[in-house]
């Protein structure tokens, strides 16, 4: 598996990572590579340690053993090279959209006028222009996650870590999000690591899908849906290869779903 390190440039590598919570083995000897500039999904049933893996990459959780590197540097703590998008958005309810989006820059000590100018730009980019002074409780779930996404884009990290970002968003909004995400991957030269439990979502948005099986977690298969990547967003869901891959993944996962 490690013989192709020269041909592909990996932004993030995970090598032989173990993680236990007390007696529960969350991750056992997990190794996975994330190619630069691509979107890799980590897909698996609930309880398979997807979020644990993402938090270890983020530097929010220490691994018991094994090594995680980002751009060749071993990860020990959160860093400027990574930005996180949270499942429950993690917005500050007392701060308006502008401050929430600029908050990552605020914590880095960027001057107020400068960080607000940057925040304005990304607020426009995620389609929230005009909502700068709204508070999170005044926004819908989908709009709140756009705020979370804008905050992550603001700090200009090379690696974007997304923890089931669309799971708390209604179905129609989620579809729109997925289409927007495809454009984002195309336009921003960032590496995306995307945790999800939705098979369709993973196949739709990813350059590479890593399937994790639970208890203890290990990578069972890596699928690269390449055939329909160049097609436009609307026709992917009708593409025979897309449907085949979704079926194949379901076949391998169904035994693990109680």
């Amino acid at each position, binding site marked *: 598996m490690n013989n192709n390190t020269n041909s592909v440039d990996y932004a993030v590598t995970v090598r032989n990572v173990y993680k236990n919570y007390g007696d529960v083995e969350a991750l056992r000897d997990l190794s996975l590579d994330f190619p630069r500039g691509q979107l890799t999904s980590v897909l698996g049933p609930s309880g398979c340690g997807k979020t644990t893996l993402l938090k270890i990459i983020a530097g*929010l959780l220490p691994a018991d053993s094994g090594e995680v590197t980002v751009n060749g540097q071993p990860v020990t703590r*959160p860093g400027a090279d990574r930005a*996180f998008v949270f499942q429950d958005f993690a917005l500050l*309810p007392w701060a308006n959209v502008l401050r929430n989006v600029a908050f*990552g820059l605020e*914590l*880095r000590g960027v001057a107020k006028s400068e960080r607000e100018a940057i925040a304005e730009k990304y607020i426009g980019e995620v389609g929230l222009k005009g909502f700068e002074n709204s*508070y999170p409780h005044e926004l819908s779930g989908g709009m709140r996650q756009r705020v979370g996404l804008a905050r992550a884009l603001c700090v200009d990290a090379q690696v974007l870590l997304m923890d089931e970002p669309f799971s708390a968003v209604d179905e129609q909004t989620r579809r729109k999000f997925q289409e927007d995400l495809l454009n984002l991957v195309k336009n921003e030269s960032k590496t995306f690591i995307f945790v999800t439990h939705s098979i369709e979502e993973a196949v739709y948005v990813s350059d590479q899908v890593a399937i994790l099986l639970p208890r203890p977690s290990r990578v069972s298969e890596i699928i690269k849906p390449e055939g329909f990547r160049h097609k436009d967003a609307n026709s992917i869901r009708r593409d025979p290869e897309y449907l085949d891959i979704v079926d194949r993944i379901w076949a391998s996962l169904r035994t693990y779903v109680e």
Partner: protein
Amino acid sequence: MRYRSLLLKFLSAFILFGSWEIAGRIPVSFAFPTFIESMVAFWVLLVEGTLFVAYAETLKPLVVGVLISAILGIGIGLSIGLSRKFDWLVSPIFIVMQTAPLAALIPLLIMVYGIGLTSKVFVVCIMAMPVIVLNTSGAVRNTPVSMIEMGQAYLGTRLDIILKIILPAASPIIFAGLRLGVSAGFIGAILAELKITPTGVGDIISYSRSIADYPSMYAAIFSIILLAVVFLNLLEQIENILFKGPRQVYASE
């Protein structure tokens, strides 16, 4: 909407004082004056200046005690909320303080600190501090985990995370604790004056009772409640100025 809530407040006051008046006229007890009698006595105490002299005395232990409780209480509560070890070390003291029968402890306080201001400040603190400490520590501990992780992921320092995430997130409950602490402090101040040495408003209460001037006694009690309500409203105004924005909404979220 505003008029309506004001109207309801007046209505509620009217019902309360009305039933007081009726209960006084029946009378439910020889020692229970009517509302009007009490208000007349209240007016007399005001005009004669007795009430102001009394409050100059009562407010000393109250203000000192509440200030100590607020500053120390929030500080200690914050430390308890942030550190497990500190929690084990300090929390039991405040749980004991909150459940201890204070009136029974007062003789002990008098033996150690005498009958002066110090003992009274202690009584106010014992009443006010536990609820402030326990509310603050609970609120700090209940900060949503993902908000703290967000602070870490975006490279906030420990101090950043405390000042910009934990404290604002905890502030509605910290203020609720402060309000409870202040009202408990009022009870403590009067209790101290009744149990340690009769001074200030406590003196008016015990003296009026001893000469069976019940209207004055109830007027003094009424004045305490009035002052407490005014003070709590003031605290709420301060809270609103300090933390602008939609607080009620996110406190319940």
